[in-house]
């Protein structure tokens, strides 16, 4: 058989389902060994924020923008939970896997390319974010948030946002040379975004430039969409929020693939 005919016999393409499935199976089997700790941190952290802010500030502030403060924070911390369960595991997990465990070298020796590897890993993180993101909302329901049928849109919103944050984390991990440098990203990027997202307080009383910057914050758009879903209060501006999150997800996905390819292929 000539080289040419061999090539024609086994044509492989980009983003193939078996390659994505292989990487996802690895993630799922691995997840079985650490799901308890991952679930604990991804649910307890935002719940503590919800309880601390909701009942702490809630005793001082009865309502915000017409919502009970516990409801306001309960819906806002969905975005926090998404961030904690996507950007953080993606940053640290990716770095550990390619630098210390050399897991990606092993996977790339199989018929999987970097695009498939990054896509599958980010999809898995997004699924987790879509699931864990709902926890604060469920806790808020226990504390008085009225269930609405439109809340079924919260997991997909959290999934799309989580996919973008997973790509962000992968990009950071593939770009920085040391895990110590993650502190710059945590303090310089994530913390400001986390605080200026409309999670704990509304932004409309802040300076105009802060409000403009917030429009570039994916977490802000997540919060707005989650509130629209949780309170069934949709408006035309939600198209802008949804569009921003989709573009954020797609842009971060491609950026992550590009940076990881540079890192993994000499």
């Amino acid at each position, binding site marked *: 058989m000539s080289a040419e005919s061999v*090539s024609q016999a086994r044509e492989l393409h980009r983003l193939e389902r078996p390659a994505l499935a*292989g990487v996802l199976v690895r993630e799922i089997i691995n997840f079985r060994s650490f799901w308890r700790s991952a679930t604990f941190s991804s649910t307890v952290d935002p719940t503590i924020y919800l309880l601390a802010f909701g009942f702490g500030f809630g005793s001082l502030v009865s309502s915000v923008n017409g919502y009970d403060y516990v409801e306001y924070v309960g819906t806002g911390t969905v975005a926090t939970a998404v961030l904690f369960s996507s950007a953080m595991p993606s940053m640290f997990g990716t770095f550990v896997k390619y630098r210390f465990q050399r897991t990606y070298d092993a996977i790339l020796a199989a018929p999987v390319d970097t695009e498939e590897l990054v896509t599958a890993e980010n999809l898995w993180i997004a699924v987790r974010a879509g699931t864990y993101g709902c926890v604060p909302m469920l806790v808020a329901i226990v504390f008085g948030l009225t269930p609405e049928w439109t809340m079924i849109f919260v997991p997909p919103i959290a999934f799309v946002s989580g996919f973008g944050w997973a790509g962000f984390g992968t990009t950071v991990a593939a770009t920085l040379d040391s895990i110590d440098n993650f502190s710059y990203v945590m303090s310089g990027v994530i913390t400001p975004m986390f605080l200026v997202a409309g999670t704990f307080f509304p932004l409309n009383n802040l300076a105009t430039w802060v409000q403009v910057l917030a429009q570039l914050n994916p977490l802000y758009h997540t919060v707005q969409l989650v509130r629209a879903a949780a309170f069934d209060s949709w408006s035309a501006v939600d198209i802008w929020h949804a569009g921003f999150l989709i573009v954020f997800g797609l842009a971060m996905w491609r950026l992550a693939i590009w940076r990881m390819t540079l890192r993994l292929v000499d």
Partner: protein
Amino acid sequence: MHGEPALAVRLRGVVKFYGAIKAVNGLDLDVPEGTCVGLLGPNGAGKSTTMKTLTAQAIPDKGDIQVLGYTLPRESKQARAECGVVPQLDNLDTTLTVEQNLLVFAYLYRLGRAERQPAVERALEIANLVDRRDTRVDKLSGGMRRRLLIARALVHRPRLVLLDEPTVGLDPQVRQELWALIDGLRSAGVSILMSTHYIEEAERLADTVTIMSKGSAIATGPPHQLVREYAGSEVLEVYGPPPRLQEVERDAAGAGLRTRRTGTSVAVVGDHANGLFEADSSVARAANLEDVFVLLTGEEVE
């Protein structure tokens, strides 16, 4: 094909730079199907970079690479589907069990649902890890982990196995076990490319050895042929204090013979070395691949 053997691996003029460093320098390499080729060279010779180019984890700056008939890097994914790779550094999933590690790779290598479990069982048998199937990898010994790495590379019955320093850092007994395993693959007709800096490993397992130095292949052939061509049939080991050894080196050079220091002796290479030095301080022995390696690379064996 004009009677020429089919090639599992074919490299022509491969060049790979890392910044200003030329890691691989115009390398030509053939691995005929069904044979074991040993890539022998000192640390930094370019062996690992060469292995990485074969899985497209390093893209050459120049040259042509074909693996199992596929042209790399364009068709690398197709080639990898039919290759098994045993890396130099352990990259097993340490929190998973032996069986889970194999199962993950049965999925990654796209085995069908009905094929996966039999493939895992076969790989466990090959690596003699059946009774360790439920053991977490971080509880295994170094030798067992190496066997598992080999089993993982074989789970999909590859046509070509790439072994990058397969026994580095292992004790002699474990090394023997792995040699038996690799020899079994070779006997089964699997094509093997194995990089190593252990002379004995190359000598025992490889049908053909390519000696690399500074990124280039400097000699290629069956081990016995390389020995005959570069070191003759006999080597004279001359023992003595350092001043005496210096004198022997001078005399040998004067007679047009090559030498190498081997601790307390000087090895004088060449079939007519006998008779040049006193018989009571010298011993003749058969020339070996180590003599060839040191003479060609200028590097002592670890």
